[in-house]
C-alpha cells in the first residue's frame, strides 16, 4: 500500500469517526428534547433543545461534507491551520465556560430553577459544547 493510499484510509477513518460522534451527539440531544417535551410537558424546553439539536445536526452535516470533499480531492482533512484553530478554540472555550458556569451557579439562586444537580451539570456541559462550537466557527471564518 502506498503512502498516499495509507493517508487516504487514515483520513477516511478520521472522518467516519467524527461522523459517528456527530450522530451520537445529535441523537442524544433529540432524545433529550423528546424527554423534556413528553415526560415533563415542557414545550418551550423541548423546542429550545430541538433547536440546539438541529443546529448541531446542520453544523455536523456541513463539517462532514467538507471533510469528505477534501478526502475525495486527495487533500488532508487536518493541517496546521485547522489544528491551530482547534487549539485556540479549546483555550477560549475553556475560559468563557468558567464564566458561563459561574453565571449558571449565580442564576440558579434566582430565576433559573434546576430540577436536580444532574440537570445543572448537563446544562453546563451542553453550554460548554455550544461555546466551543461558536468559538471554532468564529476563528475558522475569521482566519486565525
Amino acid at each position, binding site marked *: 500500500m502506498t503512502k498516499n493510499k495509507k493517508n487516504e484510509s487514515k483520513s477516511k477513518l478520521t472522518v467516519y469517526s467524527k461522523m459517528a460522534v456527530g450522530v451520537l451527539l445529535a441523537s442524544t440531544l433529540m432524545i433529550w428534547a423528546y424527554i423534556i417535551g413528553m415526560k415533563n410537558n415542557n414545550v418551550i424546553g423541548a423546542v429550545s433543545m430541538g433547536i440546539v439539536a438541529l443546529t448541531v445536526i446542520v453544523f455536523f452535516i456541513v463539517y462532514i461534507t467538507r471533510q469528505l470533499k477534501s478526502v475525495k480531492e486527495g*487533500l488532508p482533512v487536518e493541517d496546521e*491551520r485547522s489544528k491551530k484553530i482547534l487549539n485556540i478554540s479549546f483555550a477560549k472555550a475553556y475560559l468563557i465556560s468558567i464564566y458561563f458556569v459561574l453565571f449558571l451557579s449565580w442564576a440558579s439562586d434566582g430565576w433559573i430553577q434546576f430540577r436536580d444537580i444532574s440537570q445543572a451539570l448537563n446544562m453546563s456541559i451542553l453550554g460548554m459544547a455550544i461555546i466551543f462550537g461558536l468559538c471554532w466557527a468564529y476563528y475558522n471564518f475569521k*482566519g486565525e
Partner: protein
Amino acid sequence: MKTRMKELRARHNLTQEDLAKKVDVRRETIVFLEKGRYNPSLELAHKVAKALKTTIDELFIFDK
C-alpha cells in the same frame, strides 16, 4: 501581512487545489494565505515558496 501568492500561483498555472496538494494542506488554508488572513509557520511558508519557485522574502511582504 501582504502576499504575492495569487500572482505567482497564476504565473505557474496552478489552481488553489493544485497548490494545496503540493504543500499538503487544506484548500481553505491556501484561500486564507492568499487573503493575508493567516500567518503560516516557517515550514509551510518554505513549502509554499518552494512550490512557487520563489523565496519567502518575495512571497510574503511584512508591513511592520
